[in-house]
């Protein structure tokens, strides 16, 4: 078999620029082999090297007293006390999910699970953030069904509950859906494992599934170029096998209870290449690997293919010398392949052998440290000012506000997502204390009294109008959701989904969003401990809204103090905390989009100092049992938040009678559906009223008493009144109806 000669042309086909290829020649001092070219191209790809984002990602605060592991490892780790820590990360699987929704989403879940258990943690919960095109787009229904069943198929089988998430729809995702998957695991401090290849002479062990040709990156290249036998083009989407991953999970955790290993890493993107080079890079070592010893699913695989395959459910382990037998015994018990494929060396070179000859020999430090870094030009788009112009007075007022209210509550962004989460096993492992459907999911940590609250958020309309403020809001809102449940945010992971970074306006969006997020993180004292960047979310030159999704992790020292968004009892008082944050903010609102067909204006303003006080107040109110429920005002404004508290309770709908928190002269539709940042709808038993008001004064939070829970109607006096049951029905059925799915 002859390899195609490596040239700058072939390098360009691999996505390396001429300058980058020049650097490869300089590092090696010769022309690379095809395998080496493949290795450089994946290691220096945007996905693995973060070359366009690195300079901006540095702006995030990543340290804190609880942070045990920040960005740079497979996942972030945050201490939760009593010798325990949580390990979590979110990652995108956007492109594959658009091509093949079931497998794309499934392998997204599989990949993020491995990132967590490779660090020694048992995964206890997953979340996801999904964005699709318009509900009426001909492909949307197929994509929604496929993605949801893919997530269900993988997560349910491996037995990790999917406890929450978000699903929304916008035209900008018609050609580029977003599938962001998050997993959290729990680990004892002394059981944390890192991806390091330390100890010269230690064996490098391959475990898990066999390697096939799936997911090899060179999707653009005909395979004939590196094999004279013209092969069929393989789909670039990998195929998931959750059963094997379950075995891999149990085998890895069993192995990690021994001390037979030094380091372990998932073979994720760029497979054997990234795992081996990254582990050696972290340890400052080298390695030699013999590709003939890699368990293979297909015949005749080339070294290029073996190094670049993204076959799923594989791990690379560096064991202690002489302890290979223990590794073998455990993986054989679980019917998994295990093979010693190489060893750690001290010369800093990654050396790959195949059929008796060296096919790659790369200085590891140069490969990782000299990876390209770009500070790409950024420029505010010309159309941004026009986008931000909005004249609310010119909007026609709806004739029937009650009807508009029902319509908003049943639109797919707002409607009950039960059709989705009923397909996810959200109860397995018996930790889920707050089931899907509240602001945050809450899980208990068995063996302690603690709870973990989780929320994933991003309002991408806000981000498209003002990425800086939108970025701040993504952080504030996810932290507020966690605070509503009574928890303290202790860390976050993000998925930064953007268009083509080579476009200055996209780079401006990216930079602005990061700066906004970083500012909010600083103000709220929440570190970013892991995350992922997904660029090039563009089809036919049209980019998505900037979508920096935030997954917030909160800690409840006492899980019994958790709160939900739904009202609890008839006769409870309804109050609005942060009432001075209200305003006539129509910019980017759900009302503006759903009813008036516009995404325009500016997002509601954020006051970070207020936000911090508000969240402390919410936690204190929950801890002191002063509130029965807490729900933040977000999409759909006051009226939709009130409706959700009435109808999203597990016990069925309940009514409420309240005053409008807006001045009487306010235009009624604006009073109902204006959006704001920093206001939370509370309910409390009358006996707690005085203490709650006292507490609000202590935190300088403006609180307004609005009304009472009860009755069969949801009544905002002077504005609108609808039957609670009617609203609940519209909200329950809205999602399936809008998408034409069976209920």
């Amino acid at each position, binding site marked *: 078999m002859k390899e195609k000669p490596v040239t700058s042309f072939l390098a360009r086909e691999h996505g390396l620029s001429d300058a980058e290829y020049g650097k490869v020649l300089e590092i090696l001092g010769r022309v690379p082999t095809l395998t080496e070219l493949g290795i450089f191209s994946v290691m220096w790809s945007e996905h693995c090297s973060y070359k366009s984002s690195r300079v901006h990602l540095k702006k995030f605060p990543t340290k804190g007293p609880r942070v045990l592991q920040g960005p740079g490892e497979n996942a972030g780790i945050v201490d939760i006390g009593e010798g325990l820590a949580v390990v979590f990360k979110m990652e995108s699987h956007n492109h594959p999910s658009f091509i093949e929704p079931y497998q794309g989403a499934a392998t997204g879940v599989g990949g993020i699970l491995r990132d967590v258990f490779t660090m020694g943690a048992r995964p206890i919960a997953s979340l996801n953030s999904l964005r699709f095109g318009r509900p009426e787009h001909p492909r949307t229904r197929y994509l929604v069904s496929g993605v949801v*069943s893919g997530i*269900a*198929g993988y997560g*349910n*089988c*491996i*037995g990790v509950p999917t406890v929450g998430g978000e699903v929304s729809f916008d035209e900008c995702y018609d050609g580029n859906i977003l599938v962001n998957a998050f997993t959290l695991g729990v680990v004892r401090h002394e059981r944390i494992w890192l991806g390091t290849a330390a100890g010269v002479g230690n064996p490098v062990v391959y475990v898990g599934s066999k390697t096939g040709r799936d997911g090899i990156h060179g999707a653009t290249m005909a395979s004939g170029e590196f094999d004279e036998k013209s092969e069929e083009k393989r789909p670039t989407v990998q195929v998931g*096998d*959750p*059963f*094997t991953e*379950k*075995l891999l999970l149990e085998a890895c955790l069993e192995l990690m209870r021994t001390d037979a290993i030094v380091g372990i890493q998932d073979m994720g993107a760029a497979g054997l290449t990234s795992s081996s080079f990254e582990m050696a890079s972290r340890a400052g070592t080298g390695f030699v690997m013999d590709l003939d010893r890699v368990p293979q699913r297909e015949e005749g695989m080339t070294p290029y293919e073996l190094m670049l395959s993204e076959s799923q459910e594989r791990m690379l382990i560096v064991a202690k010398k002489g302890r290979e037998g223990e590794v073998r015994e455990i993986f054989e018990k*679980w*019917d998994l392949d295990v093979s010693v494929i190489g060893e750690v060396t001290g010369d800093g070179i990654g050396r790959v052998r195949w059929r008796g000859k060296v096919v790659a020999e790369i200085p590891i430090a140069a490969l990782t440290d000299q990876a390209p870094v770009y500070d790409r030009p950024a420029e505010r788009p010309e159309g941004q000012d026009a986008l931000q112009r909005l004249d609310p007075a010119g909007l026609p007022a709806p004739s029937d506000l009650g009807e508009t209210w029902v319509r908003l509550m049943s639109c797919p962004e707002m409607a009950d997502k039960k059709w989705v*989460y*009923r*397909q*996810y*096993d*959200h*109860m*397995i*492992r*018996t930790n*889920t*204390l707050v*089931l899907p459907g509240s602001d945050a999911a809450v899980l*208990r940590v*068995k063996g302690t009294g603690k709870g973990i609250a989780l929320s994933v958020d991003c309002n991408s309309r806000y981000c498209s109008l003002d990425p800086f403020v939108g970025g701040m809001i993504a952080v504030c809102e996810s932290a507020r959701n966690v605070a509503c449940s009574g928890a303290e945010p202790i860390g976050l992971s993000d998925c930064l989904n953007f268009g083509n970074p080579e476009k200055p306006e996209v780079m401006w969006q990216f930079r602005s969003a990061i700066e906004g997020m970083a500012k909010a993180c600083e103000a709220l004292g929440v570190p970013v401990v892991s995350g992922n960047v997904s660029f090039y979310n563009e089809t036919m030159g049209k980019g998505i809204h900037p979508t920096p999704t935030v997954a917030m992790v909160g800690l409840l020292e006492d899980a*019994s103090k958790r709160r939900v968004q739904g009202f609890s009892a008839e006769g409870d008082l309804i109050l609005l905390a942060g009432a001075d944050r209200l305003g006539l903010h129509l910019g980017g609102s759900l009302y503006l989009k759903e009813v008036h067909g516009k995404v325009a204006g500016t997002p509601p303003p954020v006051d970070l100092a207020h936000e911090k006080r508000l969240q402390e107040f919410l936690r204190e109110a929950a801890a002191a049992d002063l509130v029965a429920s807490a729900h933040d005002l977000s999409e759909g404004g006051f009226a939709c938040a009130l409706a959700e508290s009435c109808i999203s309770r*597990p016990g069925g709908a309940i009514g409420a009678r309240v005053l409008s928190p807006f001045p009487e002269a306010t235009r009624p539709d604006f009073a109902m559906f204006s959006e704001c940042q920093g206001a939370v709808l509370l309910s409390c038993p009358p006996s707690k009223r005085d203490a709650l008001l006292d507490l609000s004064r202590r935190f300088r939070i403006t609180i307004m008493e609005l009304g009472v829970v009860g009755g069969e109607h949801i009544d905002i006096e002077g504005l609108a009144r609808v039957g609670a049951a009617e609203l609940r029905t519209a909200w329950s059925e809205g999602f399936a109806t809008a998408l034409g799915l*069976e209920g």
Partner: protein
Amino acid sequence: MKTAVLVFPGSNCDHDAYHALKHVIGVDAAFVWHKESSLDGFDAVVIPGGFTYGDYLRSGAMAKLSPVMGAVRRFAEGGGPVIGICNGFQILLEAGLLPGAMIVNDSLRFICDYVHLRAGTDRTPFTRGIPEGTVLKIPVAHYQGNYYADEPTLSGLEERRQVVFRYCDPEGEVTSASNPNGSARNIAGICNEAGNVLGMMPHPERCTEEVLGSADGRRLFDAMVAWLGERTA
């Protein structure tokens, strides 16, 4: 008193069953790997839920071939209490310890939700003290929970009081609207003729504590403990 929680490749409710037995009910429990061929020393057997062998063939069709299933058969023949939950029920069906089969839910989708069950007989070790007509709130989580058997088998099950649970509404009415998966005659759980082997799709181990939304599942395990206590007394 010691309970065995079987572990097959792909079992994933094994930890939940263990937790419920050991930490909530307070009976001794131990995991038993599927390659074991003896259940000596155990007083009850739990076959937990999951996706044994990925359910890539029919659910339970591979697991029934594991060595431990021979021991389960002998244990059952000796009158010992056996409960198969979800995938465990499917394994019992495939192994022929219970009659009938499972097909895909009529919605063709996985369902995870709380449902209501109407107790049909108190003659099993797990329902002793739960009178016929009692309504329990217990969650389901399955893709293939649509119970199927031919008409004579179904009638036989009813005549011999082998229908242990049916899906019902909160008031205990067995209606087609309360049937989550299309199961024949709303059947959620059945026992063998002797009554000591119970298979059920809903997950009692997931609801043994009020904080999880229901503690009704606890009643099955409490009944089992009481039954075993009487037997040894």
